[in-house]
């Protein structure tokens, strides 16, 4: 413990000031955030996910997610060469508490068996079908590429939940409005990363800003094969998956 430095910081209030600017309200008020400078996305490297569930827990705490519902979750896949079209998938409690070891005799036994984890979240689609169907404009895409929900305006008609191909939306049991991953908008507009990325121990999940020329995602996408989920839906999904197996639903 470096007593002198901490004492100094607390004394001068530098920490307090720095923290306050981090906690500043609207993105327009945040000193350096200009909406049109950003186009947010997420990069997920499937090979790095260890299924620890940190992201699910962190998101749940950061965003007050009601129990039994998930703004992000992890799926465990088991595939063999006979089951590309119907892999064995599970997601106990969204993966929040990790995954139990598979009981003997319950898995696939064919040739080429492999297992892996796939983190899932809202894809913040550029051509989002959920915003298309909202009857009143309660869900929308911001100018920096994040799909948000206006909780004060949402009717709770559930049309958006039906329209999302990825199952990332739900209705808050008490508030009775639609909810989903906000890409931690309250954090990213202040220079922080999302809660799930912050908590990920292996760097499997990385927030990306496509408009930032220095963002590592550009180099990464040049060098690696990258996919989105359900590309045939043409939703303009912006959660890019590296090393994604074709069996993933």
């Amino acid at each position, binding site marked *: 413990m470096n007593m002198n430095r901490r004492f100094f910081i607390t004394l001068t209030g530098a920490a307090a000031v720095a923290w306050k600017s981090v906690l500043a309200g609207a993105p327009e008020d945040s000193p350096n955030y200009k909406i049109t400078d950003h186009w947010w996305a997420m990069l997920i490297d499937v090979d790095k996910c*260890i*299924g620890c569930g940190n992201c699910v827990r962190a998101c749940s*705490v950061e965003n007050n997610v009601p129990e039994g519902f998930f703004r992000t979750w992890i799926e465990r896949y088991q595939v063999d060469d006979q089951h590309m079209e119907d892999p064995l998938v599970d997601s106990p409690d969204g993966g929040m508490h990790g995954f139990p070891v598979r009981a003997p005799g319950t898995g696939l036994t064919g040739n080429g068996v492999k297992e892996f984890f796939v983190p899932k979240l809202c894809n913040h689609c550029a051509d989002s079908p959920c915003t298309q169907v909202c009857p009143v404009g309660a869900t929308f895409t*911001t100018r920096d590429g994040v799909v948000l929900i206006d909780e004060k305006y949402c009717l709770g008609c559930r049309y958006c939940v039906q329209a999302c191909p990825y199952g990332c939306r739900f209705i808050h049991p008490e508030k009775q409005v639609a909810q989903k991953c906000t890409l931690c908008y309250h954090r990213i507009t202040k220079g922080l990363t999302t809660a799930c990325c912050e908590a990920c121990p292996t760097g499997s999940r990385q927030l990306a800003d496509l408009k930032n020329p220095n963002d590592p995602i550009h180099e990464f996408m040049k060098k690696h094969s990258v996919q989105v989920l359900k590309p045939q839906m043409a939703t303009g999904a912006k959660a890019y998956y590296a090393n994604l197996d074709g069996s993933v639903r």
Partner: protein
Amino acid sequence: MNRFKDSEHLLRVVGVFLVGVTIFICFRAWFVPKSFGEFGHYRADSLAEVAALPIVHAGHETCEACHSDVLDVKKTGKHSGVNCEACHGPLARHAEDPAAVKPVLPDTSVLCARCHESNSAKPKWFPTVVTAEHSMGMPCNTCHTPHNPKIGGEKK
């Protein structure tokens, strides 16, 4: 004149309709939120509302501002990429008022297994153990120093 006499009832219908439309237009001007439509088909004020939600995880840069000594230990070891709150949990409140909010030290006998317990689905490059055989129930920090986990790595 006569013609209007016999179609007068239809004109009344049109009148009722026009009254209805007028009421609707007034109602709309009154009820639609002022910021609606500013940037698109949504209430622009909701952007600020979402952005103003409370922050729960401080973010590792904030931790490192005070705890740089831990960073020095961590950055040379295998856990250099693991952020503080990945193990210590959300600590924004602690960062806001360090003296008043004291975080609880995580219990390594539960914490470490979350990542390092052996499971066939975990990628092959990732180090795992069967904790029952590896540590026989002892907490992991009996031998390992979590910030730099290699045995013999610098002490915390």
